[in-house]
């Protein structure tokens, strides 16, 4: 399969989880192992363009597919960081940092599909993720900042709601 644009070949066991393959054998450490039962979402990756919780996907199901993690979304010319990553830094949207890769990947994907999400669309998009530190307000501000900077479409409702 392809992981962040690179072809990786491994023989997998039938009962191996995609999470274990990525984290333990392919050393993609942004994919966090926490609840193991699809509740916290910190193992979220893009599999063939769809966000999935990799603790609920078999490695063999990703065979021949394409996986993108937070390591694979950086932009050239931006110090390797995407707009949403810079906004997370500026707004302190990360405390212990454990959930950050999943929130960055998920909000990055949300903004790619919908550049001006409403507050409820944002809440809905991250409803499968848990931040144990409770930085939800800062995450919301970070996303609002990105949509506000995006001149093509400004989500006033979301920006105003964070003031």
């Amino acid at each position, binding site marked *: 399969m392809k992981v962040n644009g690179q072809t990786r070949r491994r023989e997998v066991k*039938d*009962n*191996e*989880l995609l999470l*274990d393959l990525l*984290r*333990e054998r392919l050393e993609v450490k942004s994919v966090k*192992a926490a609840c*193991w*039962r*699809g509740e916290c*979402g910190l193992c*979220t990756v893009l599999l063939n363009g*769809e*966000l*999935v*919780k990799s603790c*609920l*996907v*078999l490695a*063999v*199901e990703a065979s021949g597919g394409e996986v993108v993690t937070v390591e694979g979304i950086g932009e050239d010319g931006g110090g390797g960081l995407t707009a949403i990553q810079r906004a997370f830094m500026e707004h302190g949207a990360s405390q212990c940092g454990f959930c950050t890769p999943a929130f960055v990947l998920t909000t990055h994907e949300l903004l790619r599909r919908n550049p001006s999400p409403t507050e409820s669309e944002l809440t*809905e*998009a991250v*409803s*499968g993720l848990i931040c144990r530190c409770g930085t939800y307000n800062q995450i919301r501000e970070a996303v609002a900042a990105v949509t506000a900077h995006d001149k093509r479409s400004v989500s006033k409702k979301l920006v105003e709601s964070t003031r």
Partner: protein
Amino acid sequence: MSFGSPYFSLPEFTYHHPNNLEEVLRLLETHGEEAKVMGGGVGLLAFMKERLMSPAHVIDIKGIRELKELKYTSGIGLSIGACVTLAEVARSDAVKQHYTALQEAVSRAADPMIRGRATLVGNLCEAIPWVDSPPALIALGGVVRVNGPRGGREVDLGSFIKGPVDIELQPDELVTHLVLSEGPPSRRSTFQKFSAGSEFSVASVAASVVFGKRREARLVYGGVSSTPVRSLEAEKVVAEGEVSEAMILRASQAASRSVECVSDVLASADYRRHLVQVLTTKALRRVFER
């Protein structure tokens, strides 16, 4: 990796990835009791991690094209293949237009990542009491289409779900589709639930009312006891009463009185009875307002 707790690993099994229906049925005939069918895998893999299930064979049906189809035919109805995800059901215009309760149930189930993997038929076969789609489908008169070595058959959803994790299906059979017939144009339906965020529903109701000379109503409650349950008492009030706030109150009270509720870690039976009344009122107001 394993930390020594079963949560973190899956028991050993042989993975099968057939690409046609005949192959699935052949595998089920050979391995029967020892096998589990996997659609999205959301429920199955979670069960397996907790060792509630340890099938020697897992049959992944995602490679079968005919099971991926959601098809609406005007005048006939809706057919949803076993591999159609909750997200796909939620996105369907036909579902939105003709099967409102189903659309409302699946579009707010769990979270977007889970909805992108979990299948509607998987929801039904799992038969977990707190899952949202079964009450909606029972209210709309859903039927499952089953295939197996003794041929095909159809089972009404009301009798398909026998108890928690207990369904009317032989080990060598496969549910291929969920079918909903075309309802009368005058039918209105809705789904209402109470849950904490993306958690399981503490209580839910699916209401379906057909308007006409004789009004018909179905009220199905989820999350309150071991299987989705109807309240025939409340349905009678809705079918026979003059439409008014007073009738809605009477029906809601009848539902609260007649629906059996259990106490568990999520809520007490008393609280659930309260929710049944509140949700029934919300649902009936919606149905009668539109």
